[in-house]
């Protein structure tokens, strides 16, 4: 059990991941959901980068006086993932903007209520038409 403190990097990751997850599932505002998703994303970044750390290591830039380097592979994966992350987040933001233009709201429950209302009025219009046909 003496080695447990060495695992704290995972626990930070789990805490941040769950915080992001909580925001995504419990909050109704779509912009807030996207922020939660972004926090979830950074928790994964932190997991990878902490996996690449070597005790006593240095940044992986070659220098004749340095013998121990941290692992460069997770750095590469996460570096590209961050930029891909901002691009995909903006797709989400663009969708939120379009949803706001179509529904006048970015709150999940209002959007659902409006959808339901539209469906019901469509159904009513459909049944009235059937009655007319008869």
């Amino acid at each position, binding site marked *: 059990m003496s080695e447990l403190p060495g695992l704290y990097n995972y626990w930070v990751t789990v805490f941040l991941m*769950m915080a992001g997850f909580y925001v995504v599932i*419990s909050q109704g505002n779509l912009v807030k959901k996207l*922020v939660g998703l972004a926090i979830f994303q950074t928790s994964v970044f932190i997991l990878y980068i902490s996996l690449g750390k070597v005790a006593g*290591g240095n940044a992986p*830039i070659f220098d004749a006086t340095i013998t121990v*380097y941290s692992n460069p592979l997770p750095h590469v994966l996460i570096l590209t993932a961050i930029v891909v992350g901002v691009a995909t987040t903006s797709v989400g*933001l663009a969708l939120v*903007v379009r949803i706001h233009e179509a529904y006048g709201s970015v709150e999940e429950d209002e959007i659902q209520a409006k959808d339901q209302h539209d469906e019901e009025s469509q159904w009513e219009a459909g049944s009235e038409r059937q009655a007319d046909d008869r």
Partner: protein
Amino acid sequence: MIRLRDLFAVVILFGIYSLMTAALFMDLDAVDVAFTEAAVGAGITTVLMLSTLRLTSRWENSPAHSPVLPLVVVSITGAALIYATLDAPLLGDPAAPAHQHVAPRYIQQGPVEVGMPNMVTAVLASYRGYDTFGETFVIFTAGIAVLLLLGIRQPQPHPRPRRAAIGDQIVLRVVVKLLIPLILLYALYVQIHGDYGAGGGFQAGVIFATGLVLYDLVFGEDCARLVVPAPWLPRLASLGVLLYGGVGIVSLLSGRPFLDYSALSHDPVHGQHMGVLLVELGVGITVFSIILAIYYALSGRKVRV
């Protein structure tokens, strides 16, 4: 953040959180990653989210649901994940499986085979060039998706003097005027010097875009569009991806595998240098134009309800 109803504060807190994450990456020896996170998370993401708030609404409704069920779900998942970490390797353990497979080869042979001190750039552009090509394409696709969803508004000729979104702030104007050339120059340095120090095409593209976004924010609507017109951006983005792919095709035509840069010159190490430089340039152009296009699309859209 969960209780805050003011989304403006939420977004600013998220920007601060990103900056802290960048500091953490720095501490964990990931200088390139810290660099990217600082430019992307604290800079661009915040601006894009604020632009979205302008188009939607700043205030959030009170929650309609009770938080109990989500809390239970999150606690159970979190407990399961914590239980799973008990067998994981300790932080900084040099014998961890992650450091055993290909990493020693990258660290020992990277500076010799690819001939550049920054191992992250060597792995990014040379050893894992396929991955990076794919990621560049994902960014390209995401940018196209945003343009399809929002479109880029053509700037109208202004009869009145242009006003900045933040109003006329003399201190900001003077400071930003001094800063912008330095930011753009620094972006170019990061682009070219990525082989030797921290940096590369991804960071350079983001920093260059940041410079123009800052110009646009402080000096008013459509200022950046006069420097880089919106119709250029999709073309520039495709040019970057084509440049990357073109390098791959050239090595393919020389009878080598796709993206094997040794084919570019008689001396393999020299060829690697040229290949990495060209590929990073392609990445830089694509990232720059996509980020700027997304900013134009979000900031140029009119508020409609």
